[in-house]
């Protein structure tokens, strides 16, 4: 019997018609150009989004009210092959510096002018550490309390 349940990492793989250099450049320097404007933290609309180009740099949203709202920081900056970001937004999309989930993006040249992107967002079981997540999920009915226990045991394992 094993009651410990870990949510699987989110994985996406796809191919781009571009070099790894261009893919890395657009992902990072061009971040504001593709990040969905519908997805941001807080009440003030998003005007831009930034990934600072170095390990230890921040990634954050820029907002109409002039405030920069952090999402996390750059863990690995290794152009053009790899970028790892710390996603530190909890289950209620509040910034929590103690929370670490990892967004890992790899760019691999597969032929002339084509790049494979291997994307992974992992460590999702750590959302179980967040009290907000616990409360959000606790309010839900039925079997979710049970799921939550499993999350918590995974997180505390």
């Amino acid at each position, binding site marked *: 019997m094993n009651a410990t349940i870990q*949510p*699987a990492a*989110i994985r996406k793989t796809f191919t781009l018609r571009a070099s790894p250099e261009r893919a890395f450049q*657009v992902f990072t320097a061009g971040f504001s150009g593709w990040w969905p404007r519908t*997805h941001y933290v807080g009440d003030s609309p998003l005007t831009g989004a930034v990934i600072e180009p170095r390990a230890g740099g921040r990634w954050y949203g820029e907002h109409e009210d002039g405030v920069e709202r952090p999402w996390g920081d750059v863990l690995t900056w290794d152009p053009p092959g790899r970028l790892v970001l710390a996603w530190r937004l909890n289950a209620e999309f509040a910034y929590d510096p103690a929370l670490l989930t990892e967004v890992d993006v790899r760019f691999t040249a597969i032929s002339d002018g084509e790049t494979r992107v291997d994307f992974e*967002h992992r460590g999702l079981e750590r959302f179980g550490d967040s009290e907000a997540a616990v409360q*959000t999920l606790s309010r839900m009915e*039925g*079997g979710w309390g*049970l799921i939550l226990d499993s999350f918590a045991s995974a997180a505390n394992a």
Partner: protein
Amino acid sequence: MANNLAFAALADPTRREVFERLAAGPSAVGELAQGLPVSRPAVSQHLKVLKEAGLVTDRPDGARRVYQIDPQGLGQIRAWLDRFWDTALDAFKAEVERNDDEEPKAP
């Protein structure tokens, strides 16, 4: 909404019982039906609903099927993030390929 489906799936007490038994460990239909006040076909029907809600998965094990809680079906957060990254990465791909008039550099 997948999560609404999941909640609806768990609203039935017997179905919730089936789900909670699976939380203790993977199990086949026959094992699940033991000790439940419903028939084996009824248990199969409950499993079908739970599977459609993304709460359980099944796999063949010899002549029988073993059911278990789907770790990919767990929680709002994962489902939300999965949809979110689909949207974001589609936008990223479109942006990369939109301005591909530049000669790609040799790797």
